[in-house]
């Protein structure tokens, strides 16, 4: 268990383009982090740099206060689980799970109970004697996971979209088990995913990445409520944040002629900047009296279980609204309210306040 510090670490696979841009990143001891971002944004590269499968072209990797930048993987004592199951075909399930411990020189008396414990946690107890080759894809990934979890003395546990190949109905259960296991051992966990639900439910802190760069890091709540730019706003949430082009009128901001924001800081903004307000579909409300609020026309309602995603048209713009199904919103005119405490101001695409 250790703090991981990437000091000005960057990596390029031999071209001028950096797969991972030079950055300082700190992963604190015992916390669970999620790296969230689309494919090819540098998430896996960052994991491989931490585990030593890749030596970064720039910067230093500090694990537990020690510079491990050029230390071979085997010496770093880091566990990693890959996206696709990697199992040792020639070994049984038991031997697969015991292998990391044997490599670290544990004695037999300690290995057996530990393997039994992990097998129990992952529901593999009945499979222990079987050849790993004969398992289903799900079970193989469980074995891979088990090999990652079996050592309780690792500096960090890195997981690279480990649930991609797992059956959807098992995902929820497994996520809980992983969380359970890592809570128990207090590992530093870095979890790569492109599934925001996974990231938001699993992690203490989420790092949103794009094009080799960490765009924003924060608690799931921070990312949801105050995305630092339009990219994060669109990426997090389903559907993403509404971004509405507004015009300045003194201290006020007008959207389609309606005032949506008022703050003395608005008046001090440099002219010519592109101004937008962002509001989550979840935060848009309806005016109950039918007089106040902004007149809109609902053009389509999608039912998602107990919530509806509503497509509202206001003037020349569209707005996504998420509302409880019990409100039974139908196509037609409606008055909406943008709560000012939930509204964020973006100047040239970046969060101002």
């Amino acid at each position: 268990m250790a703090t991981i510090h990437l000091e000005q670490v960057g990596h390029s696979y031999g071209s001028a383009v950096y797969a991972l841009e030079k950055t300082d990143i700190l992963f604190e001891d015992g916390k669970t982090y999620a790296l969230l971002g689309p494919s090819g944004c540098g998430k896996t590269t960052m994991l491989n740099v931490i585990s030593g499968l890749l030596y970064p072209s720039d910067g230093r990797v500090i694990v537990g206060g020690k510079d491990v930048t050029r230390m071979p993987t085997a010496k770093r004592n880091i566990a990693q689980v890959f996206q696709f199951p990697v199992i040792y075909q020639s070994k049984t399930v038991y031997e697969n799970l015991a292998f990391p411990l044997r490599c670290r020189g544990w004695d037999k008396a300690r290995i057996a109970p530990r393997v039994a414990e992990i097998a129990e946690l992952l529901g593999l107890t009945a499979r222990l004697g079987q050849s790993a080759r004969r398992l289903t894809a799900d079970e193989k990934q469980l074995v891979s996971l088990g090999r990652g979890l079996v050592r309780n003395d690792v500096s960090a546990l890195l997981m690279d979209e480990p649930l991609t190949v797992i059956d959807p109905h098992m995902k929820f259960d497994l996520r809980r088990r992983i969380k359970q296991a890592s809570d128990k051992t207090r590992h530093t966990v870095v979890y790569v995913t492109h599934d925001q639900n996974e990231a938001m439910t699993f992690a203490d802190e989420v790092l949103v990445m794009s094009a080799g760069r960490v765009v924003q890091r924060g608690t799931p709540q921070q990312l949801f409520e105050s995305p630092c730019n339009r990219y994060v706003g669109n990426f997090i949430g389903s559907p993403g944040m509404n971004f509405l082009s507004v015009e300045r009128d003194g201290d006020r901001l007008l959207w389609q002629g309606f005032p949506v924001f008022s703050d003395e800081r608005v008046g001090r903004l440099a002219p010519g900047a592109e101004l937008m307000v962002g509001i989550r579909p979840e935060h848009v409300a309806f005016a109950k009296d039918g007089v106040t609020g902004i007149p809109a026309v609902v053009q389509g309602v999608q039912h998602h279980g107990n919530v509806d995603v509503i497509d509202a048209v206001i003037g020349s713009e569209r707005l996504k609204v998420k509302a409880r199904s019990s409100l039974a919103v139908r196509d037609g005119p409606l008055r909406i309210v943008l709560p000012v405490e939930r509204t964020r101001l973006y100047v040239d695409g970046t969060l101002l306040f």
Partner: protein
Amino acid sequence: MPLLSILKYLAILVWSGFVMAPLTWALTTSFKTANGVTSGPTYLPWIGYEPSLAGWRSLFGGAGGIDIVRPYLNSVIVTGSASLISIVLGTLAAYGLSRFSYRTGFVKNADIVFFFISQRIMPPIVLAIPFFLMLQFLDLLDTRLGLVLVYIALLLPIAVWIMVDFFDGVPRQIDEMAMLDGCTPFEAFRRVVLPNSLSGILVAAMFCLIFGWNDFFFAFTLTFTDTQLLPVAIVSLNSSVTPWWSLSASALISVAPLIVIAIVVERLLSRGTLAGAIR
């Protein structure tokens, strides 16, 4: 029995006959004498022809024959050790070529692999004179050691070629995982990749053994009398009157180990325990 299986078994039966016919022919001929061979196709001993052990005796020091035991042993030793060394070196070389990037000037991994394979592009005759001179210089002409060295040069490219292809098909993640689990790169190879690669090694070994065992040309050009190999010894059976019975017996005895190898390899591969699939 459904029609399809009848047809299937019929096809297998026809093919078996096709495969077994020459072997049966050689087997009956090996027990015949000059009279039996020239009096038309007969297959049943005592009924079609009078069986005789003359053909077999001629292989084991009988009148007008040879002693096949020594050349046979020579062949086993030379082919066996050359194949073993080629497999060991070839597997190691192939793993390196598959996993690490080498660069010397403009020479890269692909060039090195091609360099290995290119050794087998030239017709053997091109190599015969250099090999002869080199062995002469080392005083290894007509010795088993000399032949082993030459055969390694011939078999190593086969082993490297097959194993590079095999290792390229083994995902790197296996090695990476082993290193994460605490193995050094060599341990990752020995403890994880190697046990997973037995099928590839088996196939490469089979090819080495077959090529080595069947070589006549180098065995012929690089030896005289002391270190005859089996193919050369068999050829020396031929005289003005072709001894079909002796040749048949020697054909059977020299093809026997290859049949054994083929059966063993087939058994092991089909048992699935060595199947190469990783995921």
